[in-house]
């Protein structure tokens, strides 16, 4: 659902130690941060280890492993989170293919005790913003 906006248009920003981009929730309503079951990022075909990703939202910065207990901290549906991904040598200015998959637990769809986990994948080729 709403997969197109998972990667924010024009948000890919290169730095000399990595890159960042805006991540939107592919769902129609706010969910708690504990609903984020995983984020996979590939840049130009190369996977970034998930434990190295950092997600910034509501003025806080989290590792993915920080999220599961945060069932009372909300990701509002209209807000982009900023994802920071380290990359040795940085991201050269120019065009890059960004491939992002996010897994969200849908907290009101539960079958036989197992909540539904939605996986949405978005791939966009973007030209980096200036960066520093």
């Amino acid at each position: 659902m709403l997969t197109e906006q998972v990667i924010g248009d024009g948000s890919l920003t290169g730095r000399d130690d990595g890159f960042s981009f805006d991540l939107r929730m592919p769902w129609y309503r706010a969910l708690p941060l504990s609903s984020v079951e995983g984020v996979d990022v590939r840049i130009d075909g190369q996977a970034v280890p998930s434990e190295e990703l950092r997600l910034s939202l509501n003025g806080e910065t989290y590792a993915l492993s920080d999220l599961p207990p945060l069932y009372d901290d909300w990701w509002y549906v209209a807000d982009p989170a900023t994802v920071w991904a380290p990359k040795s040598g940085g991201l050269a200015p120019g065009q890059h293919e960004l491939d992002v998959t996010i897994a969200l637990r849908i907290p009101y769809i539960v079958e036989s005790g197992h909540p539904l986990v939605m996986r949405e994948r978005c791939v966009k080729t973007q030209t980096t913003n200036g960066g520093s």
Partner: protein
Amino acid sequence: MAPTLPRLGVTLYSFTPDFHAGRYTFEDLVVRAAELGLGPGLEVIGFQSFRGFPHVPAEIERRFLELVDTHGWELSCLDANVDVAVRADRLLTEDEIVHYVGAQLETAGRLGFPVLRIQNMATPRVVERLVPRAEQLGVKLGMEIHAPETVRSPWVLALRELYERLDSPYAGFIPDFGASTQAISPSVYEVYRAKGVSDDLLAEIARRWDELGTRTFEAHEEIGSFIGLAHSMGAGDHAVNLAVFAVGIHGHQAPEAWAEIMPSVVHVHGKFFDIRDGREPVVPIEELFRVLVEHGYTGYVSSEYEGWHWNTESDAFDMVAAQQELCRRVLAGLAEERVAGEVSG
């Protein structure tokens, strides 16, 4: 005298892609839908429209109610979510669910919504525990019955039993018209054919959908089986969506079946997917309204456009306007029939 009829309205869920893409803010949607005359009933999803829900800051609340007032809206329904799986480590306990939904009920009462939509993860015991507060607040609890569930689904039967025992006007149901479709919307086939899904697979999906209408089934099992079918026939990344659209939002229940629960209906979701030549290709709008009118239902029918899941071309505002034109035409016809019936009877 002209018979009293259901009232029309809209749920802002119909405009989800416009909102999600940032083309309209929540307040923009309230204004735009009013300008297009899509009221008078206004339904919103708490967790979609209000940042921080169920806590709505006083200033946001004041501005929202001012817009409602200025634009002649009548609040019809606030949609709660029964998020039993908010925690990553376990499901919420009954006490926690009552508390979680109770907070949303309080917000409905404070904002002045007459109905709170609830979902089937709320057990009869949870509903029963919420009813006294709903009565105090004057907010009716409406359990949504959404495809592929029906008025005879076991959990619905359990609630019907509870409702009979409670005999409270504050415990009811919200039928979703999508539970009573005649086929999968033709626009689904058109869109996925254009994406390269084979005619053979689409024909097999149609055949299996028809077959589902002949028996009872478990939604998640059938979604799994449709995913398997779609994968085996080369649908790739489209398999999950095709399965969910086929099994999860196109139900088989006969329109007349809603009659069984009509005395408990507190709100209606006028789900639709498409309007072509003034008709909804698969949702039998006239038959559905006929059941409502025959049972004297005078609450709201919220137009709920959901074709946006696959149709990314059409304008959702145009769609809702066209569906409401159809609804008004159908209601006028039904009203005439009733007047004629009263005269001759």
